[in-house]
């Protein structure tokens, strides 16, 4: 299509929406990310009190003790809006699809020692329930949180958890040639095996937290910050060395996902802690509380794969997490 209209006649009236211009300036074009997230959430003049939370407005910044002058101070370093998010995940899922196909076609699990596969069954597969719980927590953040940059990211994060729970289920089905024994056993272990109970208990306690930002810290910073390095880096590396290398192809999504997640959790902690000493103190207090709570829970499940080295492994991932938090202004 070509139009012979003089350029001055179709000169734009403005470059940005006004609510975007107030943040990025009149003359600097906004990115798609900025347009998609800034100030889209309602902030005022709500009509009716929520029947499910009569103490607060429908959208209410006071549902957390964290205080921000501007709830859009934090932006996602990945700049995920919906399309950017699904586009990134579509690429990753394509890789995963190829990996599953490859492993299945060449029967790559066949030559993995039985004891390695047992650890996968006992340690990896029950994590689908952890992912589901993490999803609930992130849906909660999306529901009760404040500011689109934070809540949309929780929505994506929760969706990823369902994806990962399903990938873990597929590993179980691959192990059992599409029978459901491992899935059933993993659920039973999750519900009754003493090894899993401290973690399940801690998750249920996180479900009932009133402050959504504390859920953010408990789930996405502390729990993930211990669990992912422990399982997907350390344990899987150990299993790979013991003849389980093909398994790495099946958890590639999770390892990439965690590297990506750390980028925004770091940024969120940094921006929130830098806002005020009060915020920093809260983050520090919550982190300490959940570290203390989750360290033994992690040691308990680590015992399945690491035996008597479990405590040492958990200590190491904890140290990494504490160092990472300190760099971002959260002292533990």
């Amino acid at each position, binding site marked *: 299509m070509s139009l012979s209209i003089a350029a001055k006649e179709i000169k734009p009236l403005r470059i940005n929406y006004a609510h975007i211009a107030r943040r990025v300036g009149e003359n600097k074009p906004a990115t798609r990310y900025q347009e998609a997230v800034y100030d889209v959430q309602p902030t005022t003049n709500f*009509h009716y009190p929520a029947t499910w939370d009569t103490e607060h407005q429908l959208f209410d910044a006071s549902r957390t003790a964290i205080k921000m002058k501007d709830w859009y101070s934090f932006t996602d370093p990945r700049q995920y809006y919906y399309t950017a998010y699904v586009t990134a995940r579509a690429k990753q899922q394509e890789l995963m699809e190829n990996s599953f196909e490859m492993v299945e076609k060449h029967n790559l699990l066949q030559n993995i020692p039985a004891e390695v596969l047992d650890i996968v069954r006992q340690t990896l597969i029950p994590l689908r329930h952890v992912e589901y719980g993490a999803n609930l927590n992130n849906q909660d953040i999306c529901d009760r949180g404040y500011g689109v940059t934070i809540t949309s990211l929780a929505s994506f994060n929760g*969706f990823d958890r369902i994806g990962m729970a399903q990938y873990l289920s597929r590993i179980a089905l691959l192990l059992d040639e*599409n029978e459901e024994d491992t899935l059933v056993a993993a659920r039973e272990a999750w519900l009754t095996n003493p090894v899993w109970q401290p973690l399940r208990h801690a998750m249920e306690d996180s479900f009932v937290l009133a402050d959504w930002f504390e859920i953010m810290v408990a789930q996405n910073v502390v729990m993930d910050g211990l669990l992912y390095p422990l399982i997907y880096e350390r344990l899987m590396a150990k299993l790979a060395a013991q003849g389980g290398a093909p398994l790495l192809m099946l958890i590639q999504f999770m390892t990439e996902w965690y590297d990506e997640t750390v980028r925004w959790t770091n940024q969120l902690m940094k921006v929130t802690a830098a806002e005020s000493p009060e915020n920093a103190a809260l983050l520090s207090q919550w982190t300490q509380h959940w570290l203390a709570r989750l360290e033994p829970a992690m040691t308990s499940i680590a015992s399945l794969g690491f035996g008597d080295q479990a405590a040492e492994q958990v200590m190491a991932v904890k140290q990494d997490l504490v160092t990472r938090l300190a760099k971002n202004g959260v002292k533990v």
Partner: protein
Amino acid sequence: MAKKLNMRKRYELLTRGLGWEPTYQAKEKVFSNESYEGIKITDWSKWEDPFRLTADAYWKYQAEKDKKLYAVMDSFAQNNAHLNLSDGSYVNALKLFIQGVSPLEYQAHRGFARLARQFSGEGAQIACQMQSIDELRHAQTQIHTISHYNKHFNGMHDPFHMHDRVWYLSVPKSYFDDAKSAGPFEFITSVSFAFEYVLTNLLFVPFMSGAAFNGDMATVTFGFSAQSDESRHMTLGLEIIKFLVEQHEDNLPIIQGWIDKHFWRAYRVLGLVSMMQDYMLPESPMSWKEAWDIYFVENSGALFNDLARYGLRMPKHHEVATAEAEHLSHQVWGIFYNYIHAAAFNIGLPTEAKMNWLSEKYPNTFDKYYRPRIEMWREMEAQGKRFFNMGLPQLCQVCQIPMGFTEVSKNDPMQIAYRVSEFNGEKFHTCSDGCKDIFDHEPEKYVHAWLPVHQIFQGNCGGAEIPDILNWYHFKPEDGGDYKGSADEARWKAMKGEASPATSQSNAAA
């Protein structure tokens, strides 16, 4: 050889047993919203997920769809394809859309997140979470599509600020706040069933076919692209209703009550769409009445016939809405003709051709009731006495539309309908039996309504004078008023080479 799994079984295994059964915390605490509305769920596992869409398949399909959508959006902007519109006045439909509809998509995103946290059955939980993220998609793709129009036309520059404040936008906002402040089962009945299932075609088809008829390919593309998500949402709406009614007999009257309420609530919001459809589109593919006959009378009639075996009946006052179909758009447009100086879009008197189209589409009502009024207003305009109502209207306590609907179902279509209720010694006014019923059922809720006119009188809207209020809305002088003589019209003419560039420059700077 691994055993073969069909799609249904495979999906079932992938999500097998994921639902959370708390033992360390009380179930009523973990899923604290699930029981307070009186809905009884005896067995969530009876919920059959109608989509069986895994997360990885979702990412793949949605990314493919969005790739195409953004390619169209980019080429639209690059080619300044707004110049292909049938007429510049068409853009007023988009103004109404970005101010009134896109913020609701966002609200739906957050509302479904609550359901995705609060429903303890994993089937419904995952379906709600998918809808939540879809709704975010709709809000964001609409913002991105309309962003280009915002660069070239007025009235779209601050839609989210406006949505929280402007008098006519409190109609859609209060409707969604109503659902969102309710419990999760009422929310899903309202949004997924009453709105998405029963009435969504009356929102999307008018906007999207209007876009297609008027050369707006960008909007058509996001509309079609959203359609595949909408069909999932509609299925969810129907499935949840059947599921709830089958779960326990006590659920039926509660659900029917919500259907009655939210049907009427949503129908009143659609009054704005009827005006857009009949009066704001330069080229109209179909009238409000035609759309109502197909999408409500026929389709929903058939739907409720099917639902009769569940004990559900047509929503209360549906016959009033059907009777009003020959009046609605004319009355809503009439209200806006009076107050367009205080709006962020333009309308104007219909052309002779449009009047003839209205006569043809509304043979029983237009010439008899509405043409004479328009001719009178035309006469006044010709004499330089364009009529604007400079007072503030009385609003319905429930739907928040200025009182202007008439006693159509009482065969008195020239008599404005007023209903009054008393609560705590105060009088509250509503526009119809439908709105009055809603008020009387939960007066303690509706007394809280943030009624724009009351708020202005209480000094909460930037001042007492209209310019102060418009300033508080972030309206600019060129945003409202008649299309004829508007800044947008001048720019459009300049763009199309129908006026001297000097005129267009002065308007661009205005």
